[in-house]
């Protein structure tokens, strides 16, 4: 780690590196120097060695942008955070955005242009695909040329496509991302304005391009338990983050969603019909009587309520939901529509089905595939992969040599978004600018560069971007600099449009069938498989099931019992398209007679981490791309027991009040008589009170706001150089995340109530871990931190044994030994990389505290507790985490700590944690509360 080897130093990137580029690491105690220091040749004016810089940029997922702020150390991006001003972020960052940092440094990324199997070079590619060369094969009008791009909202790509169309008018242009929306108009929501929300198979708090904003808006109405709190009903088949955060969650078979909505529609439509006289029906969970209560609640809040359908629900469901919102007077108030900024949205000629048809007809001579992974992530019946292989000349531009890349004649490494200029639209239409932070590490090319080469345009991507943005109205140097600095153009949300005419589908009576509904779902961690090679994400426990490194067939306990299977048994899921063997995972709260399967596993590309993880379910996906289908599920008798790496094994609290929740009513009753407890806790030691001259750090976590989305876990992993341990070690309960999210179930197995509890080092004032350490490697700082000194630790693990919260993590192996040189660049230089055999744990981001403390003291300015923001706090979309100092009585953390909802976990042990939790308040509907 002392100096970069030659191969790396050839990269432009390294020239940006400054003086203190040695990565933090415990490479022994040798004090004998022998290290090189490389100063700049010309020092960039904006850079001071040792001080991190921050740049705004944006990441695209399924075509939509999320604004980000990226921290960079000496030219090396090390941390991705949300852009506080960007409408799709509001300062938070989701797991994919944050983990995309690791993708930048992934050593498995494609690294050279190749043709057939021989490495060539960019020049060879641009020559072979130049208009001069290509015309001979694809015809003068380009009838034999087809392009497949990922779903995109980029203006510059749109312009380049237009240029291409000018050159090759008959060329086929297609856009495909399996999880992207394809409607011509997309709904927009104002969650903040809704008093009552009904989510129909919608995970709006943790999935989709607007999840961060919607989470924030949702939580803003729940910060203080009051009559103003919103109320969330969720009707869903699989358990989602949104469903488990709901005040009332109802199960429903996926095929029953439409009948349920139809009944709700009629309930709302004709109020004269006395509710109790309607026929009582059950829809595999939710019943007519519950629907009547919901309908009544919605009706009470006309114009101030909202019904959201999952983005992957069929058009008929969306039509019904639009009709219901119309009925409730919500249209134009809590919900409206804009034209989809995605290119080709709503036009079937741009679809992958159209491309597949052209391929089958043999009409395509040359296919250029930019991004995506259609050989893997297209529905099996489409047989895209086979058709793709038959095309004479194919090129794939991607980050990895994945399934598509392996089958393509040409492979061009793609530039990561942190390596390239670009643009895109947020879900609300806001124009966002993608700004590079480093030169392409592998010489990757952006989509714009590829298109420019194909069109024979010899302009830099930056020049092309500025031209395109100029066309959208971003004229002038000031406007440009401002947009780059902010990362987006202020006030550029798309105008509202009239939605399509609502055609309410006729209510079909629920059929009695013996088949099982199969739902195809985006995976919470690998998404559609594009993040499958990301260790942080593979090892991130699923927010609901805590499953890592795997996917499974999710079944309800009752259905599993009926099929005579248990978790780990294998089932054969048969759809008309295909049949696939999957291990079963029983999920409490899942709807009966339905199975949920997840995309993104069973990868067969050259990505080493992703190989062999889980099962590919794309072959089973209907050609229509419908996310719900019917299947038969049978126990596979000849299969052995599958071992899941699940980070939590016990889901009940067993009467231990670990994560507290209460209804708004009981809280109100309790709060009326609440008096803060000002008695000092009992102690055998006189002890001195913590010094008031320095800060006394403390944190509160609001369980009422925490949805369990796990963005904080990835933020912590990235900020604190937490290693990835792999599936076998997770099976052995050796995952390293300093911050985990405990998840408890209360009530029946059929439909339990869920509560998520982020659990991290509680920074106990009377820390049990400290007094058992034989070498004093963990002790207390004057400012109330439970310090962990890795370089002093000998690894007795005594501290972990005595930690009642079990938040300490141990380096069982040298987890950092196997990571590549490039991956080391993702490490935060402000945090020590831990050696094998040492303990580690949450430090309250002490490096951030010290950095702020030192800079305030150097500048001579007052040091405010609120100036320190921990990584988890920063990432949290709902702002459930508050951090600050107890010495500041006015601080938010003090206010929360002393409030009626605050409590210490395991308070009776006398550890005096500095982390307090605020109990979760369920805004339960009294009309339903008695039933539950």
């Amino acid at each position, binding site marked *: 780690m002392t100096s970069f080897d030659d191969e790396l130093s050839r990269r432009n990137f390294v020239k940006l590196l400054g003086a203190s580029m040695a990565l933090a690491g*415990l490479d022994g105690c040798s004090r004998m*120097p022998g290290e*090189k220091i490389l100063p700049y*040749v010309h020092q960039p004016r904006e850079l001071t060695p040792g001080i991190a810089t921050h740049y705004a940029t944006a990441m695209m997922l399924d075509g939509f942008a999320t604004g980000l702020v990226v921290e960079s150390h000496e030219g090396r991006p090390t941390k991705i955070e949300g852009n506080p001003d960007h409408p799709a972020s509001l300062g938070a960052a989701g797991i994919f955005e944050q983990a995309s940092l690791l993708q930048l440094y992934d050593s498995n990324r494609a690294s050279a242009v190749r043709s057939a199997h021989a490495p060539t070079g960019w020049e060879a590619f641009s020559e072979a695909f130049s208009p001069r060369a290509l015309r001979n094969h694809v015809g003068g009008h380009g009838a034999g040329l087809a392009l497949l791009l990922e779903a995109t909202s980029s203006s510059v790509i749109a312009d380049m496509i237009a240029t291409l169309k000018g050159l090759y008018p008959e060329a086929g242009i297609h856009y495909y991302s399996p999880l992207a929306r394809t409607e011509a108009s997309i709904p927009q929501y104002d969650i903040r304005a809704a008093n009552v929300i009904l989510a129909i198979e919608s995970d709006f708090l943790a999935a989709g391009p607007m999840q961060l904003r919607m989470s924030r808006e949702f939580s803003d109405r729940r910060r203080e338990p009051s009559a103003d709190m919103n109320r969330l009903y969720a009707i869903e088949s699989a358990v989602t983050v949104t469903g488990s955060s709901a005040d009332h969650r109802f199960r429903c078979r996926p095929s029953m969603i439409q009948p349920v909505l139809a009944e709700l529609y009629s309930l709302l439509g004709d109020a004269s019909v006395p509710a109790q006289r309607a026929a009582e029906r059950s829809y595999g969970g939710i019943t007519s009587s519950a629907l009547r209560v919901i309908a009544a609640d919605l009706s009470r809040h006309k114009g101030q309520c909202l019904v959201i359908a999952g983005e992957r629900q069929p058009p008929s469901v969306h039509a019904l939901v639009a009709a219901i919102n119309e009925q409730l007077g919500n249209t134009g108030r809590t919900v409206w529509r804009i034209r989809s900024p995605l290119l080709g949205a709503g036009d079937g000629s741009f679809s992958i089905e159209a491309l597949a048809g052209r391929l089958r007809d043999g009409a395509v001579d040359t296919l250029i595939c930019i991004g995506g992974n259609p050989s893997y992530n297209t529905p099996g019946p489409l047989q895209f992969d086979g058709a793709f292989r038959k095309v004479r000349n194919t090129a794939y531009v991607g980050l990895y040599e994945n399934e598509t890349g392996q089958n393509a004649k040409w492979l061009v490494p793609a530039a990561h978004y942190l390596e390239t200029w670009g643009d895109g639209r947020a879900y609300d239409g806001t124009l966002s600018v993608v700004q590079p932070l480093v030169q392409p590490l592998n010489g990757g090319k952006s989509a714009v560069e590829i298109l420019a080469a194909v069109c024979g345009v010899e302009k830099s991507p930056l020049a092309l971007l500025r031209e395109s943005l100029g066309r959208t109205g971003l004229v002038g140097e000031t406007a440009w600099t401002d947009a780059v600095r902010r990362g987006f153009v202020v006030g550029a949300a798309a105008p509202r449009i009239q939605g399509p005419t609502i055609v309410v589908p006729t209510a079909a009576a629920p059929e009695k069938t013996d088949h099982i509904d199969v739902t195809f779902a985006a995976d919470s961690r690998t998404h559609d498989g594009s993040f499958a090679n990301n260790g942080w994400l593979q090892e991130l426990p699923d927010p609901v099931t805590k499953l890592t490194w795997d996917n499974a067939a999710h079944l309800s306990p009752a259905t599993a019992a009926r099929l005579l299977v248990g978790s780990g048994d294998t089932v054969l899921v048969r759809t008309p398209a295909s049949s696939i063997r999957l291990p079963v995972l029983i999920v409490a709260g899942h709807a009966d007679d339905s199975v949920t399967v997840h995309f993104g596993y069973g990868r067969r590309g050259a990505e080493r981490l992703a190989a062999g993880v889980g099962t590919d379910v794309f072959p089973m996906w209907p050609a229509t791309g419908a996310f719900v289908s019917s299947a038969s599920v049978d126990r596979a008798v000849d299969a052995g027991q599958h071992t899941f790496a699940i980070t939590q094994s016990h889901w009940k609290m067993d009467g231990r009040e670990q994560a507290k929740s209460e209804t708004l009513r009981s809280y109100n009753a309790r709060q009326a008589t609440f008096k803060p407890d000002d008695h000092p806790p009992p102690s055998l030691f006189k002890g001195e009170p913590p010094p008031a001259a320095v800060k006394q750090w403390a944190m509160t976590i609001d369980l009422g706001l925490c949805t369990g989305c796990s963005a904080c876990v990835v933020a912590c992993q990235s900020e604190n150089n937490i290693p990835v341990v792999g599936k076998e070690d997770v099976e052995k309960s050796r995952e390293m995340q300093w911050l985990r999210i405990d998840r408890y179930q209360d009530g029946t197995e059929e439909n339990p109530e869920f509560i998520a509890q982020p659990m991290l080092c509680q920074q106990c004032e009377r820390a049990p871990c400290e007094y058992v350490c034989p070498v004093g490697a963990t002790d207390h700082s004057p400012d109330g931190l439970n310090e962990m000194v*890795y370089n002093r630790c000998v690894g007795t693990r005594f501290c972990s044994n005595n930690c009642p919260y079990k938040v300490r993590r141990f380096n069982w192996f040298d987890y950092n030994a196997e990571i590549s040189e490039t991956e080391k660049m993702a490490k935060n230089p402000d945090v020590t990389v831990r050696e094998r055999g040492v303990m580690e744990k949450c430090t309250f981001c002490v490096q951030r505290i*010290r950095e702020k403390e030192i800079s305030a003291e150097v500048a001579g300015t007052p040091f405010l507790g609120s100036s320190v923001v921990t990584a988890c706090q920063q990432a949290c979309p709902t702002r459930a985490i508050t951090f600050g100092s107890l010495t500041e009585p006015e601080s938010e953390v003090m206010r929360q700590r002393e409030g009626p909802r605050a409590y210490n976990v395991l308070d009776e042990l006398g550890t005096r944690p500095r982390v307090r939790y605020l109990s979760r308040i369920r805004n339960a509907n009294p009309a339903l509360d008695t039933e539950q």
Partner: protein
Amino acid sequence: MPALFPRWTNTAVRTVLISLAVVLPGVPISVMAWQRTPGATGSGYSPDQPVPFNHLLHVTDFRIDCRYCHASAERSSVAGLPPSSACTACHNEVWSNSIALAPVRQSLATNRPVAWNRVNRLPDFVYFNHSIHVAKGVGCETCHGRVDRMSQVVRTAPLTMQWCVDCHANPGPKLRPVDEITVMGRAVGADQVALGDELVRRYKVRRLTNCTTCHR
């Protein structure tokens, strides 16, 4: 039959016992003593540099301030090394064709940095911050020694934890007014005790010996 052991074995055994009594405690004591020598700590280390930069000349004769080259010492955790372009700011005019400066010229021509040999190295788990030490009145000289007398830079401090902690536990004696930070050969007067106390108050210097002061 004579005795099994001849008479001299008594002396031999006694000698062995006395030697053991010396050697057994002696070995660890020697190791502990050795750890404190320059050979073990590395103080006195003075590697040859790619460019024979002469601090004596630049500091003493030309009176160039430390911060001209080590520009971020007051702002950043690292003091910083001058970029190659900083050298040529002057050496375009003087000694512009010196053989000694060839690596600098080459660096500028090839856009690759000059690879200096690090003299003062802390382990990777130690987070030293120049700016706060400068702000609290710890002079360059306190840790780096009389750089103004070094034609080739020498490490003067042992950089052991004990050496750090000695000052952290009792900073007063090592402090100086902030405007004298770069002064070399500053005389420590009899009033240093009083001055130290005064500076501790003025700069709000804390006794920071808790772990996360340096280890994070």
